[in-house]
């Protein structure tokens, strides 16, 4: 048992409590020099002790960081070998070009932006404005004092039914939004649904929020049940769910064991007063969030996504998978030519973009 940090009283503390009833210097007592010398000596010892503790902590932090980096490196090389295994040619007549890898994407001919972290192909991003955090020229980050982060755990399954009195404010959540630190809560075990509410700033300089990014922690353990927003002016308790059916890990009801996700808000949401997220807390001892971004993103009006069968087989047909497949994606022009499929992404509204998460190609 490491008890080096348990001592909380210090020698010099004895010298702090001088009152008129208990003077340190009094007639017939120790000389003032003697008192001072003892005080200095006590202070020196206390400071040495604190320095030692600080050094121990710093070395611990270094060891942990080094260990984590090295371990992550070896896991990464194992993952890369797995990745090359799933990319080998198969005898099946259909191939999925997912957007987490460049293996199926003709990167030379593609002008659309393929974000491999979120596994989404969109129109190129012209501008991106963070609506929660402001950063100055020196890299200092600021959040509006109106930003509030609160959380709850419960067995109640719907965000509409959970009373606001169940939530607790947490300034650590605001530090997380600033990307200063992780926000981690213990797994309550008695409840398995975690709620997070973010009251967002009152104004966005006229910019409507259209992108919500969430990095759950631990990644690939915590499931996202649903994401909600309250439009400005909506009655209290009225929440609208954000479409999540096209996001990775969607199993028909929730985003199971989610990694980082990027969801798009409808174009007609002009202002949001609150964001709500519900999690299914996994088997891990903790649940939390690494980062949340609410952004106003503007896209170019057109771009081209070209996917291909890397083994040169001719493609007879292609099926687009992604956001609003039946309404938006079905309207895009798709052209097959030998082993390639060219998809023309277009939009008439600068704050919306087609979102393609995969192309199923029949070879």
């Amino acid at each position, binding site marked *: 048992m490491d008890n080096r940090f348990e001592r909380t009283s210090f020698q010099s503390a004895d010298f702090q409590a001088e009152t008129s009833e208990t003077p340190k210097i009094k007639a017939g007592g120790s000389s003032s020099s003697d008192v001072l010398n003892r005080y200095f000596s006590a202070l020196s010892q206390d400071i040495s002790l604190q320095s030692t503790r600080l050094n121990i902590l710093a070395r611990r932090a270094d060891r942990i960081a080094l260990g984590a980096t090295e371990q992550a490196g070896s896991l990464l090389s194992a993952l890369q070998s797995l990745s090359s295994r799933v990319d080998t040619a198969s005898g099946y007549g259909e191939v999925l070009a997912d957007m*987490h890898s460049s293996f199926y994407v003709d990167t030379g001919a593609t002008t659309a932006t393929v974000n491999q972290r979120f596994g989404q192909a969109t129109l190129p991003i012209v501008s991106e404005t963070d609506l929660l955090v402001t950063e100055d020229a020196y890299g200092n980050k600021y959040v509006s004092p109106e930003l509030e982060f609160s959380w709850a755990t419960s067995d109640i399954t719907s965000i509409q039914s959970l009373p606001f009195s169940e939530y607790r404010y947490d300034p650590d959540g605001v530090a997380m939004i600033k990307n200063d630190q992780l926000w981690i809560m213990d797994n309550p075990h008695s409840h398995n649904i975690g709620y997070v509410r973010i009251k967002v700033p009152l104004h966005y300089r006229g910019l409507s929020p259209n992108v919500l990014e969430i990095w759950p922690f631990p*990644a690939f353990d915590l499931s996202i049940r649903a994401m909600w927003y309250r439009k400005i002016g909506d009655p209290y308790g009225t929440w609208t769910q954000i479409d999540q059916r096209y996001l*990775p890990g969607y199993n028909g009801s929730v985003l199971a064991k989610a990694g980082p996700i990027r969801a798009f808000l409808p174009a007609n949401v002009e202002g949001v007063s609150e964001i709500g997220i519900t999690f299914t807390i996994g088997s891990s001892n903790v649940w939390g969030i690494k980062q949340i971004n609410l952004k106003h993103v503007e896209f170019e009006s057109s771009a081209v996504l070209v996917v291909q069968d890397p083994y040169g087989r001719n493609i007879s047909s292609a099926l687009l998978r992604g956001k609003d497949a039946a309404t938006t994606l079905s309207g895009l022009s798709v052209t097959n030519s030998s082993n390639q499929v060219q998809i023309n992404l277009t939009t008439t509204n600068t704050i919306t973009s087609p979102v393609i998460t995969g192309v199923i190609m029949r070879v």
Partner: protein
Amino acid sequence: MSLGNKGTAGLFGAGVPSVNPDETLTNSGVLADGLLDNQEISNLVEGDLGQRFMTLKTYIQSRISIRDTASLVGMQRFNHRFSGHRESHKFLYTIQKVLLDGVSFYKSMRLQENTLKSSEVVDIYPTDTEIAIISHVMEQIRFKEWLLLRSDNIRWFV
């Protein structure tokens, strides 16, 4: 032997200029005139102990260490009664030393805390490369499972 006046009469005897041998010659043996000539500039080596002219960085570091050392010396055990100060000076001195050490200690603590804060998110969370690879493998396997099930071919599960 008279003590003389430092800088004029000299420490090495009457009539002899006060010259410290360590300060008159550069490490290359060129007589220094107080100004850097090209030869002396080319002789400057960072961190060379024999170097006469220190860089600004080294100068600042040395000032900091002198200040720190002085502050520690102030906390050594000695008899304040005979150091020629009034009582109130001793207490003022104490307060200043404690304040100074407290501030520098707090600054170093804060620095550690900031380093931990700004790096913990980066160090612990999987990188974009790892996230992309894990998601790619999951998507491909999920798709192949779906293909197999859809064609009623369940050999893979047997």
